[in-house]
């Protein structure tokens, strides 16, 4: 066993309540002629500052779990607390930013104005434009603020949508397969950037993916989910040292962890 340096973010913060707490959470969708159990008996507790990946085959309820936490969907059973409050209260207090699988930029707004959108809606005081520019700089797109979304590549658009989610400084970030549609090179590059952002801002990230290497590379813990019905198969602690770099991918521990996750996924499939 190699020595693993626990990341500062995961050091158990005694006494502080978890930022996400889920107990026996359930979601059933009514469908014509029956119902779909999208999520069953989910239990999970996430501490402030963690980077959590949800991984599993498509249809296992990853998006559903994220949307439940974001109050975009109502649970049909169980209990869900975000920052110690019910999900709808947390939403009203603007506790989280949401990054969708598609960039979902508004095509009638320039890059800068897209990042400004949440600040406008929330009527954030102070120099909003400066704040938005700062966010664009964070994702390395300050030169493109006057462009319209269609003038940007897919990867750049997704970076804008991350800047938009960070603009109002929410403590929590939900990301639903944000890099799913990108090529491998761009994806690895953005993974590194995302980790840098996470370290610099100290946010809690909940990240959906179906790539095992991506989950291992990014996370402090990986939540493995399986389908039919969607449930949590197991949680794997990722004890790889921080900061992570391309070398992390060569670490033997990286492969051990990836194998462990793969076995869990297979177990659920059987």
């Amino acid at each position, binding site marked *: 066993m190699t020595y693993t340096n626990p990341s500062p973010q995961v050091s158990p913060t005694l006494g502080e309540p978890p930022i996400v707490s889920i107990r026996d959470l359930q979601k059933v969708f009514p469908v014509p002629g029956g119902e779909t159990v999208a999520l069953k008996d989910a239990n999970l507790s996430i501490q402030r500052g963690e980077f959590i990946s949800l991984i599993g085959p498509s249809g296992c309820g990853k998006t559903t779990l994220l949307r439940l936490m*974001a109050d*975009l969907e109502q649970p049909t059973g169980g209990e869900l607390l975000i920052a110690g409050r019910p999900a709808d209260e947390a939403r009203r207090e603007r506790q*989280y*930013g949401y990054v*969708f699988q598609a960039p979902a930029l*508004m095509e009638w707004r320039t890059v800068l104005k897209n990042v400004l959108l949440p600040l406008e*809606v*929330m009527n954030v005081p102070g120099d909003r434009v400066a704040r938005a520019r700062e966010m664009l700089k964070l994702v390395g797109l300050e030169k493109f603020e006057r462009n*319209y979304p269609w003038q940007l590549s897919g990867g750049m658009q997704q970076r804008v949508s991350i800047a938009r989610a960070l603009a*109002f400084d929410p403590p929590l970030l939900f990301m639903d397969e944000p890099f799913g549609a990108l090529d491998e090179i761009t994806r690895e590059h953005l993974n590194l950037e995302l980790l840098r952002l996470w370290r610099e801002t100290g946010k809690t990230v909940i990240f959906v993916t179906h790539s095992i290497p991506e989950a291992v590379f990014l996370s402090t813990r990986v939540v493995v989910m399986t389908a039919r019905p969607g449930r949590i198969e197991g949680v794997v602690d990722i004890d790889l040292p921080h900061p992570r770099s391309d070398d992390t991918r060569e670490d033997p521990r990286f492969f051990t962890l990836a194998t462990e996750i793969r076995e869990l996924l297979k177990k659920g499939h059987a």
Partner: protein
Amino acid sequence: MTALRPSRVAGLGPMLIVALIAAALYWPLMLAANVGPAGRTLASGAELDCRTALACASQLRNPVVPAPAQLAQGFVRLSTPVTSPLALPYNVGVTAGETLLGLLLATVTGIGLALLLVASQAFERATLPWLVASQTVPVVAIAPMLAVLLGQYGVQGFLPKAIIAAYIAFFPVAVGMSRGLRSADPLHLDLMRTYHASSAQTYRLLRFPASLPHLFTALKVAVTSALVGSIVAEISTISFSGLGKMLAENSRASDTVALWVIMGYGAVLGVTLVALVNALERWVTPWSRR
């Protein structure tokens, strides 16, 4: 109109050639169309400066298809003096004014109705089927009667034509706009929800801008209908100016050459109005990639 775009410059060559071919074909076609009536006119013993039916075909007073020279004369006769209230330029202006005012009225009421449709499901279910059905109904049929009705209530002059134009143009705007207001991307709606945006904010920042392409598609249909509406209104009421009045007058007088010239003006007006809406669209939606 998309057909025009990729070949704006390179495509002018073929367009020109087709125009030339059409022009070359025009003369024999005109002769063929007029030769019969010319023969009959000759046989009736009318005083003409020509001896054979073929020679007379280009000189008939009321030709089936006017000869180029006749068209040119007619154009000059009807277009001058340019500022005269009896000449075409002034009358085209009147009709254009009525149409644009009608389009404005239609846009305002159409957007209002669309807001109602989107806000209340009950209202939508009660009225939308009839609105959609009304689009398949020849609404122009109502125009003559509406003109008389408005006249009875003392609405006269410019306004009744604009109202009829609006009446015809307003259905496509209402249906297009309500479709547009609903066309907002579900992801964007979710996004606004995560921001805890108010309903007014969602309309202002998301639904309205998202509806603009639909609105303009509808406006392009609406402007042509509005033009037809104002012309029909001019025909159906006692009018002292406008393309419709000139059409009715010259149709009654069987002045074919004048009718052709008026058609030319009408075509130019129609194309100009659509171009105007296109220009407005480009100005209002600078983000669109074309």
